[in-house]
């Protein structure tokens, strides 16, 4: 009766023939690739359908799309100021992708794209590359001043390595945070689901007890919805904060 709670994260090829051969590796079309396509299609459909008949007094779907736009725009304005709005398409795309893949993953049987470290790491790598490129384009070599906070010289010997390490670990922390949250939540749901089955299979009066982990699943499911939104929000706002540092270094906007 013991189920493997990690089984749901397995990446399996859908088409048995490899799509491409690159450098001796076979590239398969996996369930992960399928669900990434589904996520992108869902976001595109939602936004285009909601805004297809743009009205001055918005309908319900149109106001949902406008709400998400205003939400991200407000987030960028409050963290980076008006000049950060150049990055609006970037941040909005990341926010919608993470949000939709988190929520689509909550549908039973669906594959959670963001529970794969490969996906979250790629997202974080794109964010950090954008930050570094922006920093060098805006400030030139002055971007290295990011690692030198205002402090007495003796403290700088200690602070500069810490600043550099904290900058480099952002890549790991940004990706592992999202990945670990999704992994932990879905594993927890699966473990409680296996409790239901194990208790139900005992037979007799004990099988009635299987209702308790059932309620637990409902509770955790609600919590997971909060986490799904919160992680997308945190990913987007940390992107904004890092972009703000690249744009303005240490000064406050």
């Amino acid at each position: 009766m013991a189920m493997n709670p990690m089984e749901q994260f397995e990446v399996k090829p859908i088409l048995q023939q490899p799509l491409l051969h690159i450098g001796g590796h076979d590239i398969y079309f996996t369930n992960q690739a399928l669900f990434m396509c589904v996520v992108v299609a869902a976001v595109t459909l939602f936004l285009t359908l909601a805004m297809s008949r743009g009205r001055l007094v918005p309908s319900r779907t149109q106001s949902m799309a406008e709400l998400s736009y205003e939400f991200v725009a407000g987030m960028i304005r409050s963290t980076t100021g008006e000049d950060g709005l150049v990055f609006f398409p970037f941040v909005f795309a990341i926010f919608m992708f993470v949000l939709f893949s988190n929520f689509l993953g909550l549908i039973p049987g669906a594959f959670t794209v963001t529970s794969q470290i490969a996906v979250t790491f790629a997202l974080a790598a794109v964010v950090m590359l954008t930050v570094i490129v922006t920093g060098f384009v805006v400030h030139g070599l002055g971007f290295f001043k990011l690692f030198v906070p205002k402090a007495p010289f003796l403290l700088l010997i200690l602070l500069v390595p810490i600043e550099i390490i904290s900058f480099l670990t952002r890549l790991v922390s940004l990706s592992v945070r999202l990945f670990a949250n999704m992994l932990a939540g879905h594993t927890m749901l699966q473990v409680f689901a296996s409790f239901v089955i194990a208790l139900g299979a005992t037979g007799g009066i004990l099988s009635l007890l299987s209702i308790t982990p059932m309620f637990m699943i409902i509770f955790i499911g609600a919590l997971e919805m909060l986490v799904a939104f919160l992680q997308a929000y945190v990913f987007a706002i940390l992107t904004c904060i890092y972009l703000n540092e690249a744009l303005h270094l240490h000064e406050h906007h």
Partner: protein
Amino acid sequence: MDLHAAKMIGAGLACIALAGAGNGIGIVFGSYLQGALRNPGAASSQTTNLLLGFALCEATGLYGLVIALIILFT
């Protein structure tokens, strides 16, 4: 002690990290409530920081959990 038992003990030990996350989340929300009850007018402006603090805190515990899972499943 065989390798399997050592793995199980290691995974269990790695989950102690969640105690720190629990402490941290308690401090985040406790401090927010303290501040919010003293100055309710400023409370809504700090929800961003509240959620950010909560997520950053929770993540540190989950790093421990990831290490536990890595130990168990590799």
